[in-house]
Each structure stands twice: as structure tokens, then as C-alpha cells.
């Protein structure tokens, strides 16, 4: 799981952390530096406990846009109350994280990383003339500036080290991952917001002791509860969406699971061309729902063998519009609607319903079109067996420039190379003949034919 380069990197981070902490601790010992609050050891233990409690609350959200870890507030409180070495000790508590699924390498890395964060923040705080336990209001303005600097350094070191491990080892589940690629701004903002709590704890400590930490935990827990609810609702939402899409597909035996697979393909492409997390989420749903308008097309048209009359062809051409009608009121990104509306446009302008060409076609639609055609070719139809992946990719390449966007096609091919496509199980022969569609309007190898008038 952990690549060799990443192992090396983790070893490096751990040793640097150990050496630095030892060095600074030694210097503090030489200077006979004692934290100026009454029971420093008790404070250390309390803050470590706070760290662990906060750390156990990193709520992973399904979209993986953010991970909420307010544990930095404990480290930063230690920066103000106790000084850099002790802050590093609070950070090192991440070793003992209550998240059971963490592997040893991850624990070591997290412990070393947070220790380094605490140390760096503590040194910054001192360098900016922050006073350790100077909670008299006289110099509060000074403290505020120094604390802001310390919090910024904490966030930078934290994300910098994580970024390193990510570069070396994609796909490894570090305790706080995925952040950098998606909404960095949101993550940084929430980190800085929580960092402020460190100063609040530190300032209340003088009058309330440990109760300050307990008090601060309440809003944190409520925030975590809300995030948990959010994640739960999001899961429920996805599951419901899936079930409804399946219901829509029951009408047509051979295209069952089509929406799901197109959604998968579209997400693969979206990742490959580095779409933002939010847009990837939207294209996932757009892919799932792209054919929902087919319900408005009479079954007898969908099942007709042989060429279609003008009217029948028009009915089929209208299905993206019908889909749009259904999903228009969902609070989607506007782009997802565009994707559904235009997924049958062609690069050369001969598609439907609008006949857009080239880059007039919205990006979502160009992505969905490729995933759509690919799935249609690689699944069994009543008039032919499923084609192989190689054949389908060849067809896509052939159509690049005329039917498909070449950039999207290349991205899809690259994505499939990196992460092989799971072929669906070949469909067993249907038992109910009324559920068989003879023509597949998505299939580029068998285009719809219209009777010449």
C-alpha cells in the first residue's frame, strides 16, 4: 500500500521531528525554562486529551471535500500556554489516535507531522514576541498578531507535509487527505477558524482551567454532529437517487445499470481532466440521470426494428429535453443540466437536440457523450453481443473530432489504462419480451436510420 518513496519520506519526517524536538527541548532545559502556569503537567495532559477527542472527530464526508479536524486548537492552545516543546508533545499524541483503522506508518507520520506543526507554530509565536501565558489584556493585541502568525504556520506545515506524502503515494488513506486537490480554500478557512479556538482556550485557561477545554468541546461536538448528519443525508441521497434511476431503467431490459456505468465513466474522465470535486459530484449525478427523459419516449418507438419514421425519430431526439424538464428543479449545478440536455450533440454539429458544434457543446455533455457511447458498445444488445473494450476504444478514437471531443476521448483512454474498466456481467436472456429494446439510440456502431420520404 505504501510506496517505497513514501516510506522514505515518512522516515525522514519522523527523524526530523525527533531531532528538532530533542534540540529545542535541550535548549529549553539549558535555559531552565518553565511554563508560567501553575500545573503545567496537568495542563499538558488535558490538552492531549482534548487533542485525541478532537482528532477522533474527523468526520470524513463522502464527497471527500473536507475533513474536519479541530485538533489543531489543542496544539495551538499549548503554544500559548506552555511553549513550543510542550505543543510538540501535544501534537505527537496523534500517535495514539483513537481512529482504529490507521496503520502504523500513518500513525507515525501523523504524530511526527503534528509535532512538527506544534514546534513550528510555537517557535513562530515566540519569534513574533508572543508571550507564553500572557493573557493579561494589556498585550492582547500583540498576542493576537503573534497567534495569527503561529496559526498560519501550523496550517502551512500541516498541509505542506500532507501534500508531500500525497505526491509520493496517491491513494493512501492518510488521516487528512484529499484536501489539496479539491476545495483548498474551504479547508484552509475551516482550519484557521478552528485554530482560533486555541487562543480562546488559552485565554480562558487562567480562570477556568480544564473547564475551558470542556466548554470549547461543546460547539465542536455540535459541529461534528451536523457534519455527521450531513454525511448521512448525503449517503441516503445517493442511495435514493440510485434506486430511482434503477426504477426508471426497469422498462428496458438491456440498458439496466446503464446510468450507473455512464456515471462511473464520466467521473473517471472528470478526475482525469482535473475537474473540481464539486463539479465531479455534479457530473456523477448528471451521468446517472442523463437518459431519464427516455421515459417520455413511447415504448413502441424504443422497441421498433427497422428504420424510424420522421415523427418517431423526432420523439427520440426529444429525450434529452424531456430529461431536462424532469430534473430542472433539482438544485444542481447548472452545468449538470447542460450535460443532460446536450449529451447527444456531436462535435461536427450533426447531433441533437440543438445541433451545437465543437466547443459550443458544454464540457459536461462532451464527457457524458463519451462515457455513454462506450457503455452502449460494451454491453450486450438484442441485435448483437457486447463488443470488447479495445474495439470500443477504437471506435471512440475513430469518432474523435467528428462525434466526440478528442481531449475527452484521450482522457478516458488514459483513465481506463490507469484503472481498468469493470465489464458488467453479460445480461442473461430476458424472460419478459416486453422489456426488450431493439434499437439502442446510444450505439455509435448502429446509428438510427430514418426512412427517406
Amino acid at each position, binding site marked *: 500500500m505504501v510506496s517505497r518513496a513514501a516510506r522514505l519520506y515518512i522516515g525522514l519526517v519522523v527523524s526530523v521531528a525527533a531531532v528538532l524536538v530533542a534540540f529545542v527541548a535541550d535548549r529549553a532545559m539549558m535555559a531552565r525554562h518553565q511554563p508560567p502556569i501553575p500545573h503545567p503537567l496537568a495542563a499538558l495532559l488535558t490538552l492531549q486529551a482534548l487533542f485525541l477527542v478532537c482528532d477522533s472527530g474527523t468526520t470524513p464526508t463522502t464527497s471527500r471535500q473536507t475533513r474536519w479536524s479541530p485538533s489543531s486548537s489543542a496544539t495551538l492552545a499549548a503554544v500559548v500556554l506552555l511553549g513550543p516543546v510542550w505543543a510538540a508533545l501535544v501534537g505527537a499524541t496523534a500517535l495514539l489516535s483513537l481512529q482504529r483503522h490507521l496503520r502504523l506508518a500513518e500513525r507515525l507520520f501523523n504524530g511526527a507531522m503534528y509535532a512538527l506543526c506544534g514546534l513550528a507554530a510555537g517557535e513562530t509565536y515566540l519569534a513574533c514576541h508572543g508571550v507564553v501565558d500572557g493573557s493579561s489584556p494589556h498585550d492582547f493585541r500583540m498576542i493576537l498578531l503573534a497567534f495569527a502568525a503561529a496559526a498560519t504556520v501550523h496550517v502551512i506545515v500541516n498541509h505542506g507535509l500532507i501534500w508531500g506524502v500525497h505526491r509520493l503515494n496517491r491513494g493512501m488513506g492518510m488521516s487528512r487527505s484529499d484536501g489539496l486537490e479539491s476545495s483548498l480554500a474551504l479547508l484552509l478557512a475551516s482550519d484557521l477558524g478552528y485554530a482560533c479556538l486555541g487562543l480562546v482556550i488559552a485565554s480562558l485557561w487562567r480562570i477556568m482551567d480544564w473547564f475551558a477545554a470542556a466548554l470549547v468541546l461543546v460547539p465542536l461536538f455540535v459541529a461534528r454532529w451536523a457534519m455527521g448528519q450531513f454525511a448521512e443525508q448525503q449517503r441516503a441521497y445517493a442511495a*435514493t437517487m440510485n434506486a430511482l434511476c434503477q426504477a426508471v431503467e426497469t422498462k428496458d431490459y438491456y440498458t439496466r445499470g446503464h446510468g450507473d456505468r455512464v456515471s462511473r465513466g464520466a467521473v473517471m474522465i472528470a478526475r482525469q481532466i482535473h475537474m473540481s470535486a464539486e463539479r465531479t459530484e455534479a457530473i456523477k449525478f448528471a451521468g446517472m440521470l442523463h437518459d431519464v427523459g427516455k421515459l417520455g419516449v413511447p415504448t413502441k418507438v424504443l422497441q421498433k426494428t427497422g428504420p424510424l419514421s420522421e415523427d418517431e425519430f423526432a420523439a427520440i431526439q426529444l429525450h434529452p429535453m424531456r430529461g431536462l424538464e424532469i430534473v430542472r428543479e433539482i438544485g444542481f449545478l447548472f452545468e449538470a443540466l447542460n450535460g443532460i440536455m446536450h449529451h447527444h450533440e456531436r462535435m461536427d454539429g450533426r447531433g441533437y437536440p440543438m445541433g451545437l458544434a465543437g466547443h459550443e457543446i458544454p464540457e459536461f455533455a462532451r464527457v457524458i457523450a463519451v462515457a455513454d457511447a462506450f457503455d452502449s458498445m460494451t454491453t450486450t444488445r438484442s441485435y448483437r453481443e457486447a463488443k470488447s473494450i479495445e474495439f470500443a476504444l477504437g471506435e471512440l478514437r475513430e469518432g474523435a473530432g467528428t462525434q466526440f471531443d478528442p481531449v475527452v476521448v484521450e482522457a478516458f483512454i488514459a483513465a481506463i489504462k490507469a484503472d481498468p474498466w469493470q465489464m458488467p456481467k453479460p445480461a442473461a436472456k430476458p424472460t419478459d419480451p416486453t422489456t426488450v429494446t431493439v434499437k439502442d439510440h446510444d450505439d455509435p456502431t448502429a446509428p438510427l436510420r430514418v426512412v427517406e420520404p
Partner: protein
Amino acid sequence: MTGGTIARRTPPARMAYWQALDSGRILLLVAAAMLVIAAAAGLIALHPSQVNVRAALAFGGFIAFGELFRLALPGGREAAPIAMVGAMAYAMLLALPREYGPVTYDALLVVAVAAIGMTVGALPHIAAGRSAGLTGMCTRLVAVSCVAFIFRPIVSLVGGAALGIQVLVVALVFVVGWLVDTLVGALIRADDVGARFSVAIRDELRLQWPLGLAVGASVIIAIFGAKQLGLMELLVFIGPLLVTQLAFRRYAGIRATYLQTVRSLARVTEVAGYVEAGHSRRVSRLAVAVGRGLGLAEPELLALEYAALMHDIGQLSLSDPIPGGATLLVSPADQRRIAELGAAVIGEAGVLDDVAELVRYQSQPARGHEPGPPLGSMIIKAANAFDDMVGGSTDRNRSAAALERMRLDPVEYDAGVVAVLAEVAGRRVPSRL
């Protein structure tokens, strides 16, 4: 083409504000207005030395900021937790560091500062064309005033006590203020949606307690932090509050999207020509109104709404639309099959089992089986039958005839449900869900 026409949702007619007023709201507005007048009068009589100007400005700004960042909660509610923290902390401020001067101000000053802060914070909303949220502001003002009138007279008494006592008193008075806020909110909501007051209170308490807990703890932190560090502390404190609020916003957002999605996808039956246009939405609206009249709590109402929206989803498994669309005209065996198929579709999701249950029993007669169908199923059955017979028409004779037919069939339709349905259909409530 056989596809049904798309039902275009008519936008709810915009009522003038005074038309939407009802007794509870008028009472609230009058109370808030009287408070503001009293505060203005008190302010004039006040000697400038009695006002801690810096504190008033800092907390007023905090309140305005909080009003600016309001929070939409599930069910169309609106809260302003940050404004609430600011106002409550100002009402119960015990002391500030020496150089900020004394804080022995009057309760009326608190009312004035809160009112001004809220108004300033509401101005950008008005400028952006959103609703000013007057009702919510008045509710908060009344709650804050209660706290201020209780706490300001005893400030020096509390200030002299031990720290533990101080925290305890602050917490208790906050709970009183928060309960006032919740009760007034429930009163207004009960009026708005036509729910029973007792049910509305329970709903409100269940929904608001996590937020109340966070606000309460934040108030305590703000009060003692300000005592220790002065007003700059408020600046530091606003960060974590915003982050917490963000978490709530995401939660409320996904709930809203979820509901919109089910509403939209439930219409696939209409687009595919299985049912008449607008049917599922009308049935769900009726069902929710009846459920509310029967005193269902909010989570049950949500399940009822989902079930009513998707009650025809089982028809998608039929290869051809039923002529005319109405399930009422289908044989009981087919009705049961459609209900079963629909329940299977919804059960597939794995997270909506209660909804699936309601859909499964929607065709079962109200009497004759033991145990009978769940209340929600009986409501959907009645609402569905009513809409099948009456449709979108507002003809009173047609609706009376439909109700009469249902009344004469107490085995099929539960008498209690039909009675409330008659009441709801007679009202034809404005469709605020």
C-alpha cells in the same frame, strides 16, 4: 406521442405582507415594537456616561454580522446563531478588563443595541431582494429582551459570586431565553403551516437543541473570554462560530436537495404518461396537510411527503401506461401489485424503509384487516383517491361529491382521515409546505 404534458408549477401568488399576518405574528410584532419604543425612550433618558460605548459598538457589530450570515435550517426555518450569541452575551456581560470601563448598563440599552444591530444586519438582505426576515428578528429580540430584563438587574450580584455560580446563572438564564425563542418560533410556525401547537413545540425543540447547545456554550465562552481579554476576543471568536455554522449549512443544503430530487424524479411517472400531470405533487401536498391536521410530527411528515410523492413509482414497472392514468380505476389486485412494486423500488435504496412501508400499504382498505395499515398509508390512499376524482380542479361541487363518496365507504377510507381531508380541501391552504 403519448407522453403527458409537463406540469408547470404555478408560482405561489405573492401575498402582501399584511395579508400573511395572523394573530400570533401580530402579537409578536407588537411586542417587538413596544420593546423598541421603550428602548428608544430609555436611550434618550440615559446619561452618556452610563453607556459603555465601545462595548455597545463591538457587540452591535457582532450582532449585525450574525444577522448578515443567517442560517437556513430544514423545513424552511431561518436562524441567526451568531447574532444570538452576540446579543445574549451582551445581555449577560459581567465585566470587561479595567481599561474598557464599567458595564453597569441597563436592560433597555441591550434591547436598543440588539434592535439596531439586527436592523443593520438585515439591510443587505433587503438590498439583495431577499426577505428581511422580520418575524425571526422579532422573535430573537423578544428572547434577548427577556434575558436582559432578568439578568441586568442582578449583574453586580452575580459578578460578586464564585466562578462556578457565575457560569451556572449565565447558563440558566440562557436556557430561559432560548426556551422563549423556541416557544415563540413554534407559535409562529404552528400558525404558518397549520400544525398543532403542542406538535410544533416538540418539533422545534427536537430540531433546535443541537444548535441551542452550541449557542449556549458559545455565549458562556464569549462572556468569560471578554471578561478576561476585552472586546478583541470577539474578533477571535467569530472564526470557530462561522465554521460551526458552515457545518449546519451543508446539512440543511443536502436535505433541501434531497427533497427537490425526490419531488422532481417522482414526476417521471407523469412524463412517461402513467399518471395525470401534477398528480404526485398535489397528492403529496394534500397528504402533508392532512397529516399535519392529524398531529403528525415533522419526521413522520417528511416520510409521508416522500411516500406520497413516490406512491405511483411502481407503475414504471408496467410496460404500458394505464388508460386515463388514475389508479382508482384499476382492479384492487393491480393496485396492490403497483403498491408492492413501488415499495420494492423504494426499499432498494435501503435508507427509506419507513417510506417503502407507507407505499406498500397504500391500497389496503382501512378496515377489515388486523393490524390495519399505517396511518400514513391511509392518508395517501384518501389523498390519492381524492385527486383521482377531483384532479387540479377547484370546483367545490366536484370535491364535495368526491368526499361524499369516500365518506360512504368507511371500510376503504378511514373516517378520521376523510374528515380532516374535507377540512383541508375546504381550506385549500396556500401551498406553503
